[in-house]
């Protein structure tokens, strides 16, 4: 009798030879293999006093190839919710269709008088909960939707709302959020501007837009899978969603490039 539980239920090594782990991985059941194909990079967002700003660039990459250059990764859901998608673009499209189906069905059941219609509309928190359940269910089926999503807008109390969900169904919320490369490069800048919820109350829309633009520039400088065209949306209390999809990065400075030596075909 083998006294080590590890060996129980396995063919005996002294009779059958060592177990060939190529047949069955020791770490569990056979898994689907997959990876994202056409991908979008970071999405960043920051809360301010009466709303939220979100931005993402317009590039969809195929590996290292800048494949599609006018891909809109921010989606307006309704008058108080905008979604930003990072990761696989076809999965984002799938989610977009899922959400439009949801929106149509919601409208069927909210044909009450116009005045309270807005209160019945799905708010940002509702949508985040919904997406979190979709994403967690898909990961539990070993068939994930390969995205990191930011949900921004207003919650049921018309307060600014910002939260994320990723391909594992992991969710969290913070005054500033950034997916992908942005988590490394933009998040520190955003946190310096808005360290906590108390700072949110002091933040103006203009300053929030300013810091987001600054982050988009940093990301373009340092993220090789980014582009200098981006989309930005602002959701604000008692205002219509403002979504611009063809912003150009302004005031780029590449002067430092002059001083870089040692790459390419320079004659020093």
């Amino acid at each position: 009798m083998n006294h080590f539980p590890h060996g129980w239920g396995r063919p005996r090594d002294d009779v059958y030879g060592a177990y060939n782990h190529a047949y069955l991985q020791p770490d569990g059941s056979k898994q689907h293999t997959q990876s994202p194909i056409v991908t979008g990079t970071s999405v960043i967002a920051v809360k301010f006093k009466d709303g939220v700003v979100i931005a993402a660039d317009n590039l969809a990459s195929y590996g290292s190839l800048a494949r599609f250059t006018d891909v809109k990764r921010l989606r307006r859901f309704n008058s108080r919710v905008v979604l930003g998608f990072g990761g696989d673009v076809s999965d984002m499209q799938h989610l977009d269709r899922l959400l439009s189906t949801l929106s149509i069905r919601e409208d069927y059941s909210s044909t009450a008088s116009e005045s309270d219609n807005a209160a019945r509309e799905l708010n940002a928190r509702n949508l985040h909960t919904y997406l979190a359940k979709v994403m967690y269910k898909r990961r539990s089926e070993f068939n994930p939707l390969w995205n990191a999503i930011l949900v921004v807008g207003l919650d049921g109390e018309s307060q600014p709302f910002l939260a994320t969900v990723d391909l594992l169904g992991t969710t969290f919320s913070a005054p500033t959020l950034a997916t992908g490369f942005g988590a490394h490069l933009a998040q520190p800048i955003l946190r310096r501007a808005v360290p906590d919820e108390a700072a949110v109350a002091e933040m103006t829309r203009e300053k929030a837009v300013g810091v987001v633009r600054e982050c988009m520039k940093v990301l373009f400088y340092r993220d090789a899978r980014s582009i200098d065209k981006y989309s930005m949306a602002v959701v604000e209390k008692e205002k219509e969603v403002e979504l611009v999809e063809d912003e150009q990065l302004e005031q780029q400075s590449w002067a430092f490039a002059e001083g870089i030596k040692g790459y390419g075909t320079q004659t020093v």
Partner: protein
Amino acid sequence: MTSIGTGYDLSNSVFSPDGRNFQVEYAVKAVENGGTAIGIRCKDGVVLALEKLIHSRLLKKDANKRIATVDRKVGVVSAGLLPDGRHFVSRARDEAAQWRSIYKSPIPTSSLADRMGGYVQAYTLYSSVRPFGVTAIVGGWDSEAELGVDGQVGSGPKVGAGGKREGAKSGGPYLYMIEPSGLYWGYYGAATGKGRQAAKAELEKLNLADGEISLEQGVKEAARIIYVAHEDSKDKEFELEMTWVSSLEGPTKGHHQEVPKALREEAERLAKKSLEPEDEEEEARVEGGDRMEE
């Protein structure tokens, strides 16, 4: 009725020797007892209106809406058996959702009418079912803009292969009426229910085929026509329910919605006024004398 006692009306899908399907005709009778429903196809949209008969004072005012939305830009109003109307709408919504899942775009109003016509007709074919006790008016706006498929992510090339065709025209207002037999036609103006004869007479006066009438005029005419159609059953109370769907530039931005309360009430006020015994007009006639030509 001569058919009674002949036995040819006892089962659905059975013809009488002179080529009639009595069950379908009885269904039409059910429709003829329902509150009047009309649809008007205007230059820049469609108006649907319903004379919603109030059978109890215990019902909340302006609640229990009867005109339903299918997808985002189609409206359905029906006269006849209410539950049958509900089932009709439910099926229409399924068809619209199924269309979207295949084609990734909203169902054209004509295709929806076609599918619903086929569906209603199927209920005249089998002895295990009965025909729909409703005539449904389906009105919608097919987008005039070049729509991307659902989930489309970019705008595609601006010129050249796969680019945009300049000045291409498509979309517009559409109006269909589907009867219990499954028969459906496209209309400029459609009316069904108890007051349909009066309503049709009024609709014909509007010269809808000319395509001149605007959506706002359409709303006012629709309200007036429902009030005219109600004249014969004046003892019963009713509420006017009205919805519309406009072009993308119009007030509903291509969506099927309720007519805003203020506009509806204004239309009702004008409708009531036009029905009042016309003392002033009497005077006006004395003065001008040429008003009758209108």
